[in-house]
C-alpha cells in the first residue's frame, strides 16, 4: 500500500507541476483509523497529503459531475466504471480527466473490523497484501484481510480500472469464481407475500437521511424526486410505505447504471443492504441485454438505445 501511496503522490506532483490538471482528487489519511477521506489537491507541494490504503472505499466519481476543471482522479475498478457512465451521460468529459488507476484488492469494511475488536478501540492500522495489523491500547490484532472486505468487494469481478491514463501498479488478478447473485436468486424464489415482508424488514430501519443517495456517483440530479414539492411524489415521513417507495424508486433510477461500488451500503448509518435492490436490476440487464455497466465509453447502455429492429412489438 505504501507503494501505491508513493505512486499516487508522484503522479499528483508531476501533473500539477506540469499544469496538466487543475486539481487532483484522491484520499488523505482520516482523523481516526480505518477512515481515509477524500481530498482535493491543487498545489504540487500539497501532494504529500495524499494517501492510499484499504480504507479508501469512498467513490470519488461522486465529486465529478458538472465540474469544469481539468481533474486527475484516483480511481479503483468500480470508480472507473462510474466515471465511464458519467462520460456516457454527459456529466463530465473524457478530455477533462486524467485517471490514476488503482488495481484494487478490495476495500475493508470498517464495521466488520470494529466488530471483531469487540469494543476495543483501534489506534493505528497497518497492512500487507494479506493481513491487517491493528494496534490499540494494550492489544495487537492480526486480521486476515480477505475476511474483512466490504460485501460488494468480496463479489467484485472488475478490480482493475477499465479506463485510465496510468496505473499505479500492475493489474491484479480478477475474481472469476464468485457468484454475484446468490442472494438475489434467493429473493426471486420467494412468494409475493414473502418478498413483501422481506423488503419491509430490509428497509424498515431506514431513517430517510439520504446518505445513500448523496454518496451515490450516479445520483447527480440537481433536484432529486424525493425533494420535489410540486408535485410531491413521495411522503416525507418514515412510514414504511414512504421509505420502501424511496428505496424502490431510487433502485429503478439506477437500473443499468449501478456498478455496485457499494458506497450506499458503506455510508448507511443503520447498515441497510440496499445493494440487493440494485443487484437484481444489474442481473436483469445482464441476462436480457448481455450488458455490464460502465465497461466501455464506446457502447451506449441498452436502456438509452433505440433500434428500429427492436424485437418487442410495442416499441416499433
Amino acid at each position, binding site marked *: 500500500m505504501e507503494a501505491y501511496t508513493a505512486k499516487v503522490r508522484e503522479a499528483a506532483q508531476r501533473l500539477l507541476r506540469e499544469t496538466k490538471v487543475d486539481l487532483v482528487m484522491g484520499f488523505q489519511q482520516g482523523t481516526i483509523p480505518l477512515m481515509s477521506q477524500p481530498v482535493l489537491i491543487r498545489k504540487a507541494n500539497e501532494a504529500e497529503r495524499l494517501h492510499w490504503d484499504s480504507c479508501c472505499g469512498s467513490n470519488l466519481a461522486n465529486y465529478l459531475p458538472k465540474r469544469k476543471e481539468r481533474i486527475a482522479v484516483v480511481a479503483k475498478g468500480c470508480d472507473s466504471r462510474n466515471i465511464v457512465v458519467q462520460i456516457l451521460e454527459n456529466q463530465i468529459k473524457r478530455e477533462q480527466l486524467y485517471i490514476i488507476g488503482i488495481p484494487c484488492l478490495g476495500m475493508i469494511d470498517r464495521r466488520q473490523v470494529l466488530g471483531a475488536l469487540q469494543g476495543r478501540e483501534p489506534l493505528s492500522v497497518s497492512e500487507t497484501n494479506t493481513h491487517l495489523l491493528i494496534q490499540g491500547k494494550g492489544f495487537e490484532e492480526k486480521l486476515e484481510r480477505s475476511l474483512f472486505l466490504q460485501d460488494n468487494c468480496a463479489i467484485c469481478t472488475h478490480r482493475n480500472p477499465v479506463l485510465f491514463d496510468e496505473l499505479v501498479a500492475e493489474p491484479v488478478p480478477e475474481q472469476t469464481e464468485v457468484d454475484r447473485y446468490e442472494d438475489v436468486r434467493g429473493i426471486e424464489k*420467494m412468494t*409475493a*407475500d*414473502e*418478498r*413483501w*415482508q*422481506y*423488503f419491509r424488514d430490509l428497509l424498515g430501519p431506514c431513517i430517510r437521511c439520504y446518505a445513500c443517495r448523496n454518496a451515490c456517483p450516479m445520483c447527480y440530479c440537481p433536484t432529486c424526486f424525493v425533494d420535489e414539492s410540486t408535485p410531491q411524489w413521495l*411522503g416525507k*415521513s418514515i*412510514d414504511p*410505505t*414512504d421509505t*420502501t*417507495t424511496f428505496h*424502490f424508486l431510487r433502485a429503478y433510477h439506477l437500473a443499468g447504471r449501478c456498478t455496485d461500488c457499494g458506497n450506499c451500503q458503506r455510508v448507511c448509518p443503520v447498515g441497510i443492504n440496499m445493494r440487493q435492490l440494485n443487484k437484481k436490476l444489474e442481473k436483469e440487464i445482464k441476462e436480457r441485454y448481455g450488458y455490464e455497466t460502465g465497461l466501455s465509453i464506446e457502447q451506449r447502455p441498452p436502456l438509452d438505445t433505440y433500434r428500429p429492429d427492436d424485437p418487442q412489438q*410495442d*416499441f416499433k
Partner: protein
Amino acid sequence: MGIEPGRLHFSWISSAEASKFVEVARAVSDDVRKTGPTSKLIKKLPEVA
C-alpha cells in the same frame, strides 16, 4: 418486491396514440378492480387518543 401480480402494469404508448391510451387505461383499471382493495403501500393516519 411483493406487489400482487395484476396490480402493476407497464405499457408503451406514444403521445399520438390516444385510443391506445384509453384502451390500456380501461384494461388496467378493470384488472386492478378485480384484484380488490390493496393491502400494501397504504399509509394510515396517526391514531390520536
